[in-house]
């Protein structure tokens, strides 16, 4: 039998006097209070985005349920298990939020969330999202083209690449310590890739602001590349002259290249990329080159050996 020392009891565990004196009333009100608590939590987690228009950059495929999109995440700062981020990111502070846009630009900027939301009209775009782990989803993102932001800051002639950096705070993301990756998470695109209208800066999904586990409040979505290129919770965007380092490439350069375009013909060294499992489907689908966006982006890579530039 365990006999606990009195010091094991903390004052925080003691029922407040007000509550125990009025315990009957408290019990009676509990269901209402619980309902209010759950309601307010849900309301606090995401809010509806106003003035969202439909976009022509949309695929006509069955959209993955929100429940799947919010409970199957790779967000290693919050843990490496797929369900970890949905549990561990709930209290992630996304306000206030500042994004620095700097480097080889004529007009560097520091934007708060409000400014980011108003930078360009919000569009809903239904994109395929293909993870390097050979699963995929279809997501109704809300956001605008990355090029809208880049045009605002006016890249100089020296700017050849765009480097992105995620927020990282050991206190809020203690699970990240064991992820085996260097944080803050960094990603990058070539400038012409970044200027392609498909490259999306997302602030929401399913018509509401982003849930924390999906990269709140502000993330990148590059639908023709493997999911890890679509960096989450961005705090810095830097235009640079040389190819910037990227997190997974630093971790395993022979497995994750800078480009990481979805390509069924080029296998990951450890598994095939020719097929994928769309979450919710039983049979596997064939993976499409550039994740089906070849018409819009294939020209970016003409003359390049995609086996070498994986």
């Amino acid at each position, binding site marked *: 039998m365990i006999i606990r020392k009195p010091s094991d009891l903390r004052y925080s565990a003691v029922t407040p006097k007000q509550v125990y004196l009025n315990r009957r009333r408290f019990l009676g009100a509990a269901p209402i209070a619980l309902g209010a608590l759950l309601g307010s939590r849900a309301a606090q987690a995401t809010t509806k985005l106003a003035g969202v228009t439909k976009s022509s950059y949309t695929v006509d495929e069955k959209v993955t349920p929100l429940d799947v999109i919010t409970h199957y995440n790779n967000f290693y700062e919050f843990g*490496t298990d*797929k369900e970890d981020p949905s549990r561990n990111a709930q209290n992630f502070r996304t306000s206030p939020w500042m994004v620095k846009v700097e480097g080889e630009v004529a007009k560097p900027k520091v934007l708060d969330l409000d400014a980011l939301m108003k930078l360009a009209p919000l569009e809903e775009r239904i994109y395929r999202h293909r993870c390097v*782990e050979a699963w995929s989803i279809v997501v109704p993102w809300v956001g605008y083209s990355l090029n809208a932001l880049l045009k605002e800051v006016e890249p100089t002639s020296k700017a050849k690449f765009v480097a992105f950096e995620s927020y990282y705070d050991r206190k809020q993301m203690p699970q990240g310590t*064991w992820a085996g990756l260097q944080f803050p998470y960094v990603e990058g695109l070539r400038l012409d890739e970044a200027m392609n209208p498909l490259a999306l800066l997302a602030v929401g999904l399913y018509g509401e602001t982003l849930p924390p586990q999906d990269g709140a409040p502000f993330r990148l979505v590059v639908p023709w590349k493997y999911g890890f290129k679509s960096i989450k919770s961005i705090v810095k965007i830097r235009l640079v002259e040389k190819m910037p380092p990227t997190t997974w490439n630093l971790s*395993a350069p022979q497995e994750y290249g800078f480009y990481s375009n979805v390509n069924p013909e080029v296998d990951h060294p450890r*598994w095939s990329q020719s097929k994928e*499992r769309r979450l919710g489907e039983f049979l596997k689908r064939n993976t499409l080159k550039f994740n089906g966006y070849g018409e819009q982006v294939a020209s970016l890579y003409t003359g390049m050996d995609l086996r070498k530039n994986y």
Partner: protein
Amino acid sequence: MKKVLSNRWTKVVLFVLCLVPLAWLGWRAYKQDLTANPIEYITHFTGDWTIRFLLITLAVTPLRKLFNQPQLARFRRMLGLFAFFYGCLHLMTWLGLDKFFDLSEMWKDVIKRRFITAGMTAFLLMLPLAITSTAGWVRRLGFVRWQRLHRLIYFSALAGVVHYYWLVKSDIRLPLMYFAIWAVLMCYRAAVWLNTRRKVQRKERSGGQPSGQSGRVTIPSTASLPD
């Protein structure tokens, strides 16, 4: 303790306990709670339990000797067979739900992907052990040869752990933990082996007088005969 271990119901209880992971999986399947990617979940779950049962099986002999509980040996075969059972489930999940029983695709993967090569090695090493797990096979092979054959479990468990290590992307904590457990269990065996050899050598030098302990160290496995 000895009474509990030698009670015949203990084995039945352990048998049921070994089925708890499967029951848990079934329960989650029934509740449609196998995550957003059920096939991956089932694959990882059964794979995890295969490695765990291999390590539990490998732990039987060290525990038996350290705590002087010879009756523990009664459970070793069953635990090993459960490792094989979960291994079969794991293989069938992958083969059926990932490869859709396309054998040519399967062999392509086995040859091409080192983590699958390692996993298949682990499974194939378990196969002869499962087949020769009966008392009849011990008799047919003779105990010494049978025991030598069953040392394949060391390599099967290692291959299983390597298989897992090669699969993960960056968070290697669990595979490393399994490897550490495997290494500890193997170090124990190495220590016993070295100790035995030293004693044998000393005995030879001193003219081959059998010491009181030699019975225990040179035939360490009488208690591990299958029951």
